[in-house]
């Protein structure tokens, strides 16, 4: 069924179609309309799920951890400060190997108070052991939630699905809402292999001494690496059933490109338009959209970027004292590969500042003009 809906409602449909059994929710802008819609879907009986209105985001994640530990499919959503408050529990969910799926509607961190889009909130959580997916459209958000459960439940690590605050969360787009039977065939009920069971009692999360803790962490890294393969396979399977695929990265018009722009989220849509304009003038520019940030698709990134002389990374986020976070990862992925690629780092759009086609053009022109980046960070769209 096709419907024109906002991104947050697409998320709610994604959770409902995934037959989430327990939602633990706490409001924060711009995520709130997800949990409002879920409460409507539960109240009307369309969605059969326990819905717990918890007292904080920290508790939302703790509640999901409790329920997932008995083998129930759980969901929550948050943004910015809420995600930061959850930080301890993000480590807990991943360390406990629980396949929780959460949506983070990207919002800038405060202070100063700001509720508009940037990715610093979720990227600050990159070391917690969660898979991270950045979405470009409402359709992609809905589809990615369904995929994320399938991936997470196979590798036993949690997934975080991101969409841009307001730019997607509150923007109407045409979305194809799959029917329940088809989703059920694609995503069967969660059968937990390890769970709290009074007939087979075990202790979960108890202390590991240094003699074994290290190995547990080694296994988590192994599961993350496996996650890359599983995500690719699940995306193919999704395509067979639903006729849509996204890839863990997507290269757009990169054939014989001298310059490749790298970005994520809705900036990718704007960049597509600009790339098309440049291509129509015979200029060889392309784009690499990174959908999966954790595990980082280093091989796929290298494969696409190794053909270009110059790479321009557009980050709507920052790690203070270093720079754009995608840029760091890309430099790291290409290092030691014998490439002579110049990597330009652009930070833009923090706190919801519009990233316009003009900014993307400026990025392309600046990158074309210089053989090497003159600065660690180029701030684009900064008021003079």
């Amino acid at each position, binding site marked *: 069924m096709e419907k024109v809906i906002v991104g947050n409602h697409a998320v709610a449909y994604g959770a409902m179609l995934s037959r989430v*059994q*327990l939602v*633990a929710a706490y409001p924060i802008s711009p995520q709130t309309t997800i949990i409002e819609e879920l409460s409507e879907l539960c109240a009307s009986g369309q969605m059969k799920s*326990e819905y*717990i*209105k*918890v*007292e*904080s985001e*920290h*508790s939302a994640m*703790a*509640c*999901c*951890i*409790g*329920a*997932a*530990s*008995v*083998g*129930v499919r*759980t969901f929550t959503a948050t943004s910015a400060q809420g995600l930061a408050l959850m930080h*301890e*529990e993000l480590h*807990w969910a991943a360390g406990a190997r629980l396949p929780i799926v959460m949506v983070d509607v990207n919002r800038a961190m405060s202070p100063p108070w700001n509720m508009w889009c940037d990715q610093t909130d979720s990227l600050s959580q990159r070391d917690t052991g969660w898979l991270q997916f950045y979405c470009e459209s409402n359709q992609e958000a809905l589809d990615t939630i369904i995929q994320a459960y399938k991936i997470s439940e196979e590798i036993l690590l949690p997934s975080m699905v991101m969409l841009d605050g307001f730019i997607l969360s509150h923007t109407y787009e045409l979305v194809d809402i799959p029917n329940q039977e088809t989703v059920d065939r694609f995503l069967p009920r969660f059968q937990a292999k390890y769970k*709290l*069971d*009074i007939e087979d*009692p*075990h*202790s*979960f*999360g*108890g*202390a*590991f*001494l240094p003699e*074994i803790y290290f190995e547990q962490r080694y296994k988590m890294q192994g599961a993350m690496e496996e996650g890359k393969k599983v995500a690719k396979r699940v995306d193919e399977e999704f395509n067979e059933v639903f006729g849509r695929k996204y890839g863990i990265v997507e290269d757009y018009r990169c054939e014989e490109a001298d310059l490749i722009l790298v970005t994520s989220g809705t900036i990718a849509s704007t960049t597509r338009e600009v790339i098309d304009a440049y291509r129509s003038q015979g200029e060889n520019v392309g784009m690499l959209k990174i959908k999966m940030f954790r595990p980082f698709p280093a091989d796929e990134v290298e494969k696409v970027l190794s053909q270009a002389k110059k790479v321009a990374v557009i980050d709507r986020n920052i790690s203070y004292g270093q720079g754009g976070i995608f840029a760091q990862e890309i430099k790291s992925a290409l290092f030691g590969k014998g490439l002579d690629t110049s990597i330009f780092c652009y930070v833009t759009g923090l706190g919801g500042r519009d990233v316009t086609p003009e900014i993307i053009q400026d990025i392309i022109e600046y990158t074309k003009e210089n053989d090497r980046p003159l600065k660690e960070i180029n701030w684009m769209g900064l008021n003079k």
Partner: protein
Amino acid sequence: MKMEIPKEEYLYSGTIACPGCGGTLAMRYALQTLGKKTVVVIPACCWTNIAGFFPSTSLKVPILHTAFETAAIAAVGVKKGLDILGQKDVSVLAWAGDGGTFDIGIQAISGAAERNDDIIYICYDNEAYMNTGIQRSSATPWGSWTSTTPFDQPKDKPKKNIIEIMAAHRIPYSATASIAYPEDLKRKILKAKSTKGMKFVHILTPCPPGWRCPSELAVKLARLAVQTKIFPLYEVENGKKYTINLIPERKVSVKEYMKLQGRFRHLKEEQINMIQRNVEMEWRNLLRKTKSIS
């Protein structure tokens, strides 16, 4: 009337608990009463260790270890999850120390209490952060030494009244209990098990290393705490109906209790007299609550 004590044990022998640990005895009694159909949720506290290091466990029922401030809400998640799976007859026991209850965990407890979620929350109260080495908590009594309230500057705030906080939430059942009165303790846990909604039981569990006393005095001190009326045994139903479960037959001064513990050894006569007066005032307040209701 003597109560039938269930024989089945759910605590293995040979835990790493300190000798005389009141918190271990409390768990033993609680699980004897709750039985096999129980899941225990344990946040950071002494019991994180007593429960055993992987691959060992000291309990015969499933355990979920959780972060410090999450015992109540993680237990709610477990309970709701079991309900979803049709296992509605399983009791979920959140088992936390005083730090995890009075201090860092109180937000989640208040949330679960307000929603009247169907869990049993037991706070085993040893009156300080014992697992990290005897630091003061808001459950530490006035005048007590701890490693963060040294003898020259002992705790200068009274103990938080956690039962009043729970009663103010109007939860179906809250009670105090003592390891020195196991029949009363077990009756209360049975009552908690058979009551729907949020249940809160506050057990005073002496800690010989933290209280600076010989390990064989743990049960005696728990008994003296009740007899001196420092820790009265009472219960509150629906936040309104107060019942005192034991009215001490003879008067025992707080000094009898305090003199056995190194954590109070610096207190002067007039300070102990002040504590005595305060205990009597609190007891009268409690009596008033029972009378005004009945």
